[in-house]
């Protein structure tokens, strides 16, 4: 089968990429476009380290054929921070020591961002439910959950309250 040109938006910029059939979004991002913040822990949808946002919804990029993102808006961790600095979720993870080895962190952060975009006041249970597909073998879950709560406070303008 022949390669196809895929057009989509990546972190706000138009991208035109040539992709072979069966190419995953993970492979396109990492191997062709060099966006390596999206990790590759299992390539079977089990670990969540490759999670990206497609039109704001978390998806495991290792299971997503690139044909399915034609015309869609993809956000990776690289798209979160701006020249002005870190996104509030990134700040909360950094200041809350919510990363150990760092390999699950990109997936954790983009899922948390999507959660807070949809639900600015999540309960602890809702945070746990949102992150249930993201594996942290260092077992640093507690600081991660605290960081998401902290990020919610910051985003709601109640920092330090």
């Amino acid at each position, binding site marked *: 089968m022949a390669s196809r040109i895929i057009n989509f938006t990546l972190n706000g910029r138009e991208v035109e990429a040539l992709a072979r059939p069966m190419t995953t979004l993970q492979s396109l991002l*990492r191997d062709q476009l*060099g966006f*390596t*913040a*999206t*990790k*590759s*822990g*299992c*390539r*079977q949808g*089990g*670990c969540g*380290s490759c999670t990206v946002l497609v039109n704001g919804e978390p998806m495991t990029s290792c299971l997503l054929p690139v044909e399915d993102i034609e015309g869609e808006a993809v956000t*990776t*961790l*690289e798209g979160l*921070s701006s020249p002005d600095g*870190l996104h509030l979720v*990134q*700040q909360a*993870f*950094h*200041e*809350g*020591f919510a*990363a150990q*080895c*760092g*390999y*699950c*962190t*990109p997936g954790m*952060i983009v899922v948390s961002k999507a959660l807070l975009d949809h639900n600015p006041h999540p309960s602890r249970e809702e945070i746990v439910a949102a992150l249930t597909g993201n*594996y*942290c*073998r*260092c077992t640093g879950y507690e*600081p991660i959950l605290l960081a998401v709560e902290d990020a919610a406070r910051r985003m709601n303008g109640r920092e330090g309250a």
Partner: protein
Amino acid sequence: MSEETYQVVGRALLRRDGLGHVTGKTPFVDDIRFPDLLHLKMVRSPLPHARLKSVDFSQAEKVPGFVRALTHADVPKNMYTILCLIGIGPDEEPVLAVDEVFYKGEPIAAIVAESESAGMEAAAKVRLDMEELPAVLDVEEALKPGAPVIRPWGTNYFPYEGHPCRRVRFGDVEKGFAEADHIVESRYQTSPMEHAPSETTACIAKPEADGRFTVYTNTQALFFTLDNTALILQIPFNRLHFVGGTVGGGFGGKVDVIVEPLATLAAMKTGRPVKYKFTREEEMRVSSTRSAWRMSFKDGVMKDGRIVARKVTSYADSGAYNRHTPYAVTKHAANVAGPYAIPNVWIDAYCVYTNRQPASAMRGFGVTPASFAVEAQMDKIASVVGMDPWEIRFLNAYRNGDTKPHRKIVEDATLIEAMKAAAALTGHELPEHLLAMNSWDRGGSRHG
């Protein structure tokens, strides 16, 4: 010291690598890119024990993108053992199998290819002619007469100074049993445990213009791995420059020397950078695990709760090769009496080989299974003598100045203090006579 004076404990400090982690800029091995990168994929044994009669690459060579194969004949010093660097021998594990395989997943031949998918396809097309041999999969079965012997020195155990096990002898354990009011016996078994790091084991070896090789790796043991790689490749150490320190989860699972020697060899043979990265399946099924341990305890206990004798026989399942298990067994033998003052101790700890995936280091290796068994045993003893499980531990806890069974003097005992803190944190009220105890004197303890 009150908690308010702590500068680190209980505070969230900024990590030096934290900004890289939260922005995705931390460079893990698999994030490093070279335009002429080759990929190494492994042909592995489908059987736990077999004679390897021939390896046929004729179909694999036809796969577009196939570059070359590597076999044991390409490896300058094919037989190695990781712990040769601390004097453990003899060499016993092949980098690539020669004429016999000893576990399912054992590496037989490496395929170097232009892409990962070409490498996988070519590896799948290598034809192996093998004759299955009887496998031994249980530590005690492996030690029985007539069991298939799988080690070149003629036994299925690691010899410790001429003995079949690591031995500790302290006091007179039989005399202790004769004096005891109760004998408490149990057998404990743990399972192999996979580290399952989020980032799989990987490296990239890149030939440089000056004849050296830069090896980007996620090993936990950078210089240990550099030294072993140089020994296996029979090159001077200064031809290798290892770059590492960023490890996407290790837990002991990235201490073995597995991917670097072959990736570097492939880079030497092709003149191009070569990546050897485990798939998730390889990480789970082939990378070493924590050993499975079988531990039999016989304790002599007095009515008042004092343990007067402990006899332990332990078997570590090392799998097919040494890796770090001979060392783990020594650590185990030094710790399996527990943090308790017991006057008579006998320990036989065996490092046993089976046709299983090799075991190796994992967080406190050798000691963690010992702690599980020791503490389960303490609860059992408490139940037999009708004492509170806290009290039995305070009573028997070793104090500074005590001699451990392997003749080390206790210098840093904190068991009593740690138990008091644990009780306070969990809201468990301890009686006054236990709160009065400490690790510096025996006052009130009946071992005095």
